[in-house]
């Protein structure tokens, strides 16, 4: 057992509980409160420090890229533009994960995602960002479907057939869901692994996380989402502001990508100040890194986007929610992570102050599944 003692514990939505303890048993949080204690627990004194839930990165392909094999990466199956049956867990390489600095950046869990090149790219997993064994890392499998409605898709397929245009992208997505709905309505049918996955999306069991990088692309995605009554998470979402009312009305989530990577020409589309305003009106908004629109795909940019949101006027607490509970809810993983509550994963960061507010509000310790996985050097 691990007792994080006497910290300034963040309870979400701008509320802190001062002089508060967090008790972890095995991999879970057992209790949170000022007087909470347990005999024999290992104690971390958090006096003078803030205690936050570990950051939840909405989507990231690192761990499934296979960086060693430039040119034949493992997260992008582009033999066909529509491959919902692909499952990212089979691209996962623990050794790649072990090289990374997620815990240092305060990121304790993320949506491991197929790449950005196929129209429907496959199923995501939700994983811890540190682990000794593959089986320990996975928190949930096949918990979301990843799609892409972007120029990248057009560029990937223009030399090998459709889609080459936005028209074709829309039609192919539309047809995939129409055919899946028809499949669902039939009693006698030949098993189709891809349609089985699409049926789960049509039944709203899992969210459809779809990259769209401009207002035009977002508009088409919104149309499709309404037509099939999907649970959408719009990723990237550069230029989402104009469609925000419709997205809010549908209860969909927006997962803002990194706009500091510039080669893809994405950054000019984002109005961070407007997004802060929309968030305050109820837009479900999380921040993320760039997925694999950037080269190479990365994750520390989460905190860069946090800095952009800060410069745009968001408070430290608002940004903290955008990095914890908001992405957890977007992916339907908020029963596992995203806040410090009994029964959730014991994923905790202990910081000097809010890391979204000052660059020297260091993440001092990162605790994942009840174990310390990062401790900042004294200097």
């Amino acid at each position, binding site marked *: 057992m691990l007792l994080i003692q006497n910290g300034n514990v963040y309870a979400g939505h701008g509320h802190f509980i001062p002089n508060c303890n967090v008790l972890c048993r095995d991999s879970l949080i057992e209790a949170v409160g000022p007087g909470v204690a347990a005999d024999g627990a290992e104690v971390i004194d958090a006096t003078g420090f803030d205690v936050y839930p570990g950051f939840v990165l909405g989507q990231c392909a*690192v761990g499934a*890229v296979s*960086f*060693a094999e430039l040119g034949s990466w493992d997260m992008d199956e582009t033999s066909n533009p529509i491959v919902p049956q692909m499952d990212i867990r089979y691209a996962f390489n623990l050794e*790649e994960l072990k*090289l*990374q*600095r997620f815990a240092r950046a305060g990121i304790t869990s993320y949506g491991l995602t197929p790449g950005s090149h196929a129209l429907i790219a496959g199923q995501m997993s939700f994983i811890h960002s540190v682990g000794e064994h593959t089986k320990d890392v996975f928190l949930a499998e096949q918990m979301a479907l990843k799609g892409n409605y972007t120029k990248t898709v057009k560029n990937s397929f223009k030399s090998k057939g459709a889609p080459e245009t936005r028209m074709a992208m829309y039609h192919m997505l539309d047809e995939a869901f129409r055919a899946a709905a028809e499949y669902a309505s039939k009693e006698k049918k030949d098993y189709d692994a891809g349609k089985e996955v699409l049926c789960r999306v049509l039944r709203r069991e899992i969210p459809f996380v779809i990259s769209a990088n401009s207002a035009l692309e977002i508009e088409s995605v919104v149309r499709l989402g309404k037509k099939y009554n999907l649970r959408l998470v719009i990723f990237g979402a550069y230029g989402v502001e104009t469609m925000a009312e419709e997205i809010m009305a549908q209860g969909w989530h927006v997962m803002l990508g990194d*706009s*500091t*990577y*510039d*080669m893809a*020409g994405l*950054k*000019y589309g984002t109005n961070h100040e407007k997004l802060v305003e929309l968030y305050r009106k109820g837009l479900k908004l999380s921040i993320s890194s760039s997925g694999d629109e950037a080269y*190479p*795909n*990365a*994750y*520390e*940019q989460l*905190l*860069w986007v*946090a*800095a*952009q949101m*800060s*410069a745009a*006027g968001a408070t430290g607490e608002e940004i903290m929610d955008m990095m914890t509970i908001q992405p957890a809810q977007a992916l339907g993983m908020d029963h596992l992570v995203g806040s410090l509550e009994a029964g959730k994963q014991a994923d905790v960061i202990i910081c000097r102050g809010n*890391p*979204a*507010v*000052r*660059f*020297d509000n*260091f993440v001092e310790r990162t605790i994942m599944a009840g174990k310390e996985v990062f401790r*900042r*050097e004294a*200097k």
Partner: protein
Amino acid sequence: MLLIKNALVYTMEPNDTPEKRDILVQDGVISAIGANLSAPDGTQVIDASGMVATPGLVDAHTHAGGFDSSSPDLNEKTDPVTAQLNAIDGIDISSEDFKDIHVHGVTASCFVPGSANVVCGTGFVAKTAGKNTLEELVVKHPAVMKCALGGNPKGCYGKKGQAPMTRMGIAEIFREALRKAKDYMEKKEAAGNDPEKLPPYDAKCEALIPVLKKEIPLKVHCEQFDMLTTIQIAKEFGCNYTIEHGWACDLYADELVEGGGTICFGPIGIPEGYGELTGGDVACVRELDERGLNICLITDGPICSSETLLISAGEAVRYGIPHMRALRMVTINAAKALQVDDRIGSLAPGKDADIALWSAIPALETRAKVLYTIINGEIVYQKS
């Protein structure tokens, strides 16, 4: 004239500590920095109470303005040695990428050719706004000779079955280009003013003469052990060098400190992979900075946007580098690397009035955003 009143001024001059001060600008140059400065009637005054003033940021390595069209103009992939080409002929100041630079407080950048070739061509230093033509913006041209080792030239030529296919091939081409230029330069010197004795004109060799004369440095794209190749070859020919990107430079600390060339590090925040994809975190430069090597951070724009220059300095702070040292890495250190620190990179009387005014302490408080960018004493950006 322009008078900036009551800013918290970070001059980035040696041993200076931030204080509330005024900055007086005359004819595009800083004329005084101090408390309660006065200026004649009619002087434009910015009340900078609550603002933080720093030198305009300096980005020592960018391609912004040369890569953002469908036909990028900074990579001439037809010959592994293109010393005779100049980035100044590949930059479009009306492009979106270029126009975005000064908005983020970056007032001067070194624009360099891409890394497809072993010897890529010259780069130049220019201000980032305030004039209508590139020529008027230029601070120094040529300023550097951009070169590239490792995966980029290998990928460009090796894949076509042409040299260089390997790092061995790259070292040979690099060395041979310099050897030819040295030979050419010596023949020219021996010929004196006698046109009959001059060697046949060679544009590549001509372009490399300022490198051999230490007037401009080699600016060499290096990953990991490519740095050792650069140090070796620069030493052989008596050239100055700077290491570009420099990922995993912490592994070669002793050699780099002895070699003395600036490390223009970045972009940062790269995940750990294998081979060239290692050591992309800014912690790599911490020890080297402590040991006195000149370090600056770069955007490699448009790989990273201009905004990331400041964020990179913030990340350096997050990785344990003291704030003032991190701020130096995007101001005076970059100016030194480009040998233009007599004009830019810090705030002092006599230096160009390139100033950024921020809403909070840049690279420390994340909410800091640019309120004014001033270049040569002119307000080129004001936050609406």
